[in-house]
């Protein structure tokens, strides 16, 4: 058709998007690799080439392994609660006896996902507060005084406290995704299972799970990627502390770059985040691509 013959016009439509993506998404990634091979600070123009020294130092840095461990913890808990429990909640909400109440529950469960992490984080800081926090007050109210605890100030419980907040925030989001997925399952499958006398649990395992299998796999990968990208929650609630006990890769990078002013070291940490998330995303794309072909 003549309307779409002019290739110059096509380029004009693409140009702004292309320019912004190349300059502000692609170029910085490339630049980051280069920065990671220098020793430099934000406030001086001097850059000393040190090759892979930043990486060697990183692999010897105990904080790096604390951060990796915390990212993994984050990812595993999120898989269990968001994907695992999220799927079960979605399936239950689709049961007949709950249909009437589904809009209410699904909206309420989703609400935390739309509030900012600053709000959620600061709110939860008060919830965990040893003096006025709801959690300790609640424990005292039911007589479990000895379980009351400075949740965020203790290195043993801090990371879990942050993770719990995160589950509170995002489980409803995954529930919603699964509800939409379950809606797409042909109703006849359930009807014929009913005729065969299958109960709800059997229907869940023999129909729901296999039918949303790709979606489960994709959510698992997205959740793992999310676990490796986490920054805001940790920064707001603990800043990586107490000590370095809640440090994750991103907060470690932030601290190295903008607190300790070791920009090259921070860039090396960024590269590690890049490698991990990039590989996982490739995996995800491969899986979701397979889904499209079927």
């Amino acid at each position, binding site marked *: *058709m003549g*309307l*779409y013959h002019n*290739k110059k*016009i*096509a380029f004009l*439509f*693409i140009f702004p*998007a*292309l320019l912004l*993506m190349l*300059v*502000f*998404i*692609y170029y910085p*990634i490339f*630049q*980051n690799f280069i*920065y990671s091979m220098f020793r430099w600070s*934000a406030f001086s123009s001097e850059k000393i080439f040190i090759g892979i020294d930043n990486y060697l130092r990183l692999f010897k840095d105990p904080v790096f392994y604390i951060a990796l461990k915390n990212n993994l913890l984050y990812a595993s808990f999120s898989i269990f609660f968001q994907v695992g429990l999220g799927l079960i909640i979605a399936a*239950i909400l689709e049961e007949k006896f709950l249909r009437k*109440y589904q809009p*209410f*529950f699904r909206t*309420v469960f989703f*609400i935390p*996902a*739309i509030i*900012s*992490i*600053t*709000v959620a984080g*600061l*709110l939860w800081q*008060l919830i965990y507060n040893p003096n*006025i926090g*709801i959690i300790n*007050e609640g424990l005292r109210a039911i007589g479990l005084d000895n379980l009351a605890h400075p949740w965020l100030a203790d290195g043993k419980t801090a990371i879990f406290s942050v993770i719990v907040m995160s589950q*509170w925030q*995002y489980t409803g989001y995954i529930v*919603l*995704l699964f509800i*939409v997925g379950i809606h797409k399952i042909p109703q006849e499958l359930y009807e014929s299972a009913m005729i065969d006398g299958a109960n709800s649990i059997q229907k869940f395992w023999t129909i729901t799970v296999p039918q949303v299998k790709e979606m489960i796999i994709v959510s698992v990968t*997205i959740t793992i990627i999310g676990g490796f*990208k986490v*920054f805001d929650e940790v*920064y*707001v609630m603990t800043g990586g502390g107490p000590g370095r006990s809640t440090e994750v890769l991103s907060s470690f*990078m*932030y601290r190295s770059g*903008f607190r300790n002013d070791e*920009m090259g070291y921070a*860039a090396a940490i*960024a*590269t590690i*985040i*890049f490698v991990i998330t*990039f590989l996982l*995303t490739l995996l*995800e794309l491969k899986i979701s691509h397979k889904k499209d072909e079927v």
Partner: protein
Amino acid sequence: MNKTSTMSRIARSLIFIWFITYAICIIYPLLWMVISGFKTKSELFLNTWALPQEWVWGNYKTAWDVGVGRYFFNSVFVTSISVALSVIISAGCAFALSRFRFKGEKIILLIVIGGLMLSPQVSLISLYKLLQKLNIYNTYLALIIPYVAFRIPFTTFLIRSYLIDLPREVEDAAYIDGCNSWGVFWQIILPMSKPIISTASLLTAMQVWNEFMFALVFIEDSKYKTIPIGLMSLRSTLSTDWTVLLAGLTISVIPMIILFIVFQKQFVRGLTSGSVKG
């Protein structure tokens, strides 16, 4: 038979209890946040759980005056410009990708998809440096430009898949009437993709309104801070003046809650059409 129905009645009750508890775990803290904003400082400590004896509006006013007002304005400004720019630019790109046939089409598509895979964390250090070199560090542009750039891949993808399925008769008719592709874009494509554009705008608005990391690093000056970072500095300046802080938190969530309740359908459509986790 009787036994199974008692069983399932128990199971149903347990599920109800579980879901209601879960709902309370969400509603209660949020309600507590709103209500505590109306308490006096001492009442928050003495009567943490109860309703305020006297509803104090002052905290909300104080919160607004000590900074939330300014941050609120900044967030509204940065969010609306970012949404408008990212949607228009992405729609143009999606239009070209879905209608024109040209060399390098595949490469452009690959760049868009690749952009989906790159997380902002990785660019933080070098973007910081780049923004300084461009002399826009610590200005509104230091937020708007990266926000727009990082929203383009997803938004383009979203609009493109909508345009591919859009019937082309109207465009053909417009062409016969002498309309060129520029006119078709503004007068036909944009109006016809209103549903997907509203979805894309909502998702971008939500993302930008809540964005934290870039806002933390690319802005220094309090007068450009957006709400998420503004609240953080408020926390340090207020120290234990929690009632004012809680009032500030409440003010900052109101726009998103209203947007979500009004446009729930568009939100859900967008969230399920791609993997976009906050």
